């Protein structure tokens, strides 16, 4: 089946099998390897990307791309971690993760960053508790949560929420 998506701002048309998962579409068809397949059971959040329907405002909502079919994203805009930086400048959420060392092994990081971008677009200035709840769908098996939460709060302080989708 033919699908037409906008991935990281670029429109593309591809022929896909209906059973192709969005995460496999992004990784294998588009060659974008930021979204990782972790648990593959809608739990860990390593495959988190943003998805936005045509005409919807904002930068989209966070989804687990291991549990979305590429055909379900037909006509929609998808943003992966590769699509966040603009002109060589890190997105404020990426910058905050680097500044606060919000990662250890890095496997969960693209999903954490995308979930954070989604969270801050819905709640630009969350409390620490809201950050922890807002990221409950993302696991860090290095258990580096303290620095991750610190990074999200730092990003919020830098008004990263207002730059979502920019």
């Amino acid at each position, binding site marked *: *089946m033919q699908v037409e998506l906008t991935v990281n701002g670029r429109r593309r048309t591809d022929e896909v*099998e*209906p*059973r192709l*998962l969005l995460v*496999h579409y992004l990784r294998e068809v588009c060659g974008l390897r930021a979204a990782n397949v972790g648990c*593959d*059971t*809608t*739990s860990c*959040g390593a495959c*988190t990307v943003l*998805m936005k*329907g045509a005409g919807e405002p904002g930068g989209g*909502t*966070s*989804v*687990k791309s291991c*549990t*979305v*079919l590429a*055909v*379900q994203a*037909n006509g929609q805009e998808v943003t992966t971690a590769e699509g966040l930086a603009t002109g060589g400048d890190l997105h404020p959420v990426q910058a905050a993760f680097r500044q606060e060392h919000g990662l250890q092994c890095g496997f969960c990081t693209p999903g954490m960053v995308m*979930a954070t971008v*989604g*969270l801050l677009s819905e709640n630009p200035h969350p409390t620490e508790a809201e950050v922890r709840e*807002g990221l*409950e*769908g*993302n696991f860090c098996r290095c258990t580096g949560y303290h620095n991750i939460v610190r990074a999200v709060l730092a990003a919020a302080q830098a008004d990263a929420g207002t730059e979502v989708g920019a």
Partner: protein
Amino acid sequence: MIPAPFDYVAAQSPAHALDLLDSHGDEAKLLAGGHSLLPMMKLRLAAPSVLIDIGRLAELTGIRAEGDELVIGAATPHAALAASELVRADAPLLAHAAAQVGDPQIRHRGTIGGSLAHADPAADLPMALLALGGSVDVLGRDGTRNVVADDFFTGFFETSLAEDELIAAVRVPRRPGQGWGYQKFVRRANDWAIVGAAAVGGRIALANMGPVPLRARAAERALAEGVPAAEAAELAADDTEPGEDVHADRDYRRHLARILTRRALEQRG
């Protein structure tokens, strides 16, 4: 994990979805958010040969007040339900229950109609609908029929939906200001309830205490007779035959039902 091959059709309207259901019979499955169906297909617990996507039909989304009921489109995602000012004001238990499903990403995709049609007895929204005394608008070839929550869940992951029917909307009574309680016992964040209890007014619903979400009728009767909440809650597990699994045996589930019902009634005020 990759699902078995299938054909995909995006329905153009609810009527089109019914036509497709009619022509494909039990080989077809409706797809909305897919957050119950796709995991089952990835595990090959389900292998429909056709998926009919109704997830983006405008006719099936949105939340509106209609007289003394809220009418919620079946394809409304949990996040929209949880954030809706209308739902938070008029059926706060439903907004709360929607916010307990999975995690934020899951709530962006999963839909109320999908959760009810999936009919997991441990899930949040079936219990919430039962506690609220809500109902489901079921669309079929002969029009719409309304099924109350008490009659909708017929067995383990089974509902009164026929193969050629779909859920168009969900109805719940508008009761602004009415007290409610919602208790869900889990060992891990984001998990399904080992046991759940929800109370609104004089109604009490239980999750995972049998093959379907259940009313705690003996406790409800005691409440109606003026028995104090803590005593009524002692009857919450009467006439239940909960399953046993790695999380809990039957006696422990009954114990949880009594405790969680007491807490839900106390929370309700």
